């Protein structure tokens, strides 16, 4: 099923929680709503679910406007961070509760519950109550409840946030695989950019109720359209340094106190002659070498596979992912090579990208 949100807004009194969000979700697509807490992503999800009525704008399922359709008539399944399993029902009763309400015949109900339980590996837990299950098992049951009702649309509200790190990793893969196999259109709300990037076909980045970008994870990562996306997507986050880009003959240079970088013409000329701009470069696109910007190691954070260095170049601070075998220590003098084909530029006023407008 396709979903279309058109100019969707939600006001609570004078507070604007969602402000004119427009986006389309293709059939069988897996879309993530990504943003910091309080950005309006869950409010948007609840409007899709029908719990909230939009203040303005429309929600369309396929060609049908569903604004005034009650949640129970929308054929949606939902998975919550808190699992929201009914504590007084067994696993089987939880799985079949939506089907009992819609009066599905008993034999079909049993078959569908069993199928969902088999897919999720919870067949042995049917007679237990949620209180007797681990967090991971509870989340599987919650997912099973959403799947067994055979929804047209699956809604996830931070479903993995209450699980420990290892379990989150395996559930992440499992949900993605399930979604692909079943082909159910899905919306996944999260504040965790790794979750969004690893699972979703497209990511809607939401900030203060507004849609910042709606793109694939590669595009968000390589071509961030706003300063917010550049800082929010990617871990460790992108370095953002205020510079001035000057044209000297055919060459372009980014300069600030103690910082002087030769740029490529393709990217340099878009930032030149604008006064102060913000240069962005990801820590993995900076290398330690024997040429380039001179700096001093200020902090070393060993991450195992890499060392995350904080290098002071003049009065700017640049994070660098470095090979641990270099054994760099605090106070070491280093030279940084920046991959000029990966450099981003942003307007400090509008916070828009100068490269991907």
């Amino acid at each position: 099923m396709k979903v279309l949100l058109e100019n969707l807004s939600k006001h609570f009194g004078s507070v604007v929680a969602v402000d004119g969000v427009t986006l389309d979700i293709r059939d069988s697509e897996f879309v993530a709503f990504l943003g910091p807490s309080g950005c309006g992503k869950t409010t948007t999800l609840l409007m899709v679910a029908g719990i909230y009525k939009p203040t303005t704008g429309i929600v369309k399922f396929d060609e049908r406007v569903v604004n005034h359709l009650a949640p129970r008539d929308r054929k949606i399944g939902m998975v919550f961070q808190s699992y929201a399993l009914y504590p007084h029902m067994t696993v089987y009763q939880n799985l079949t509760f939506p089907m009992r309400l819609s009066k599905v015949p008993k034999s079909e109900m049993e078959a569908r519950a069993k199928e969902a339980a088999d897919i999720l590996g919870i067949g042995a837990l049917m007679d237990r109550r949620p209180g007797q299950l681990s967090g991971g098992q509870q989340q599987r049951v919650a997912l099973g409840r959403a799947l067994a009702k055979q929804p047209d649309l699956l809604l996830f509200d931070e479903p993995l946030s209450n699980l420990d790190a290892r379990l989150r990793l395996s559930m992440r893969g499992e949900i993605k695989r399930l979604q692909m196999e079943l082909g159910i259109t899905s919306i996944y709300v999260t504040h965790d950019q790794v979750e969004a990037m690893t699972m979703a076909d497209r990511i809607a980045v939401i900030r203060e109720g507004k849609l910042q970008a709606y793109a694939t994870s590669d595009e968000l990562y390589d071509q961030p359209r706003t300063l917010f996306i550049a800082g929010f997507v990617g871990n460790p986050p992108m370095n953002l340094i205020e510079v001035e880009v000057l044209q000297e003959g055919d060459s372009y240079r980014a300069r600030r106190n103690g910082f002087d970088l030769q740029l490529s013409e393709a990217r340099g000329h878009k930032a030149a002659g604008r006064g102060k701009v913000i240069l962005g470069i990801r820590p993995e696109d900076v290398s330690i070498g024997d040429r380039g910007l001179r700096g001093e190691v200020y902090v070393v954070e060993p991450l195992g596979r890499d060392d995350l260095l904080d290098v002071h170049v003049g009065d700017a601070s640049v994070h660098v992912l470095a090979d641990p075998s270099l054994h760099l220590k605090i106070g070491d003098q280093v030279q940084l090579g920046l991959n000029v084909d990966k450099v981003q530029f942003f307007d400090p006023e509008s916070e828009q990208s100068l490269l991907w407008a």
Partner: protein
Amino acid sequence: MTTTAVPAEPVPMRVSYRDRLRRLVSPMLFMTPAGVLTVAFFFLPVIILFGISLTNLSSSTGFKNYEWVGFENYVKIVQNPLTKLNLIATIKYVSLTLVFFNIGMALVVALLSTHISRRAGFVYRALWLLPRLTPSVVYIMMWKFIGADSPYGIMNQHVLEPLGLSTANWVAARPWLFVILTNGFIGASFGMIIFTSAIESIPRDYMIAAQVDGCNAWQRIRHVILPMMRWPLLFVVTYQTLSLLTSFEQIYLLTDGAGGTEVWALWAYHRALNNYWGNFQWGFGAALAMVLVAIGIVASVVYMRFFQFNALVQEPKIEAM
């Protein structure tokens, strides 16, 4: 190896006799104030009551000439023709008030007031507290005004006569209706407060999940809200059973036991402290009160065992997770 002397085994900590005594005594000391209060105001009165119930103490014997009569008062209770009637009246009073108001109406008000806007719900619940806040004499006076005999009475003057219907002396004509209404409107607010807070503390995700799963409003109440309120429901049932068993002031003010509304507690009061013949039968009244104590204890034990009250008290109030 070095030669430093290291003890092979750690020396067990020596606990002096004084320390041990202090550990034994100090918790007792902390419990003393509560213990004294409990004994003075709960256990001693029951023991004194039981003692009095074994005498023929009354205003005609005075405090000097009474005699110990053993269980004679209890035998009298068993033989008294009023016993059965008053017991039935008590059961009727407790169960009808409990079912229709202290639980039923309390649930309805709590559910309604949590499904409308917060402010309106608050005002609505505040209205329900008024009967409890009004002094009982004033409150019962108002009910008497409502039901007073024609040509007076709000019902007669302002409702029935304008409609051309026949009038009546309503309190006398429908004593049970008035007894249960007057007590119910006071009693409902207790459960209402407990149930409201229970409903409001059910996590929002459950309400959303129920709607997405396909519940209409009634199904959500039936399958999600009520099962999560097991503890507050049991608490209110237990507590209100016990308090209804011993309450009689509204009945006393309204009918004074007329029309078959002489409940057990009112009977005990009449015999012991407000006797028509002017002979206050303290001994017999104490025996009647002891029966009530016994019924209360039995009811508590049944509730605790049957509903596993102890286990429920230890669990979180709302069985969310």
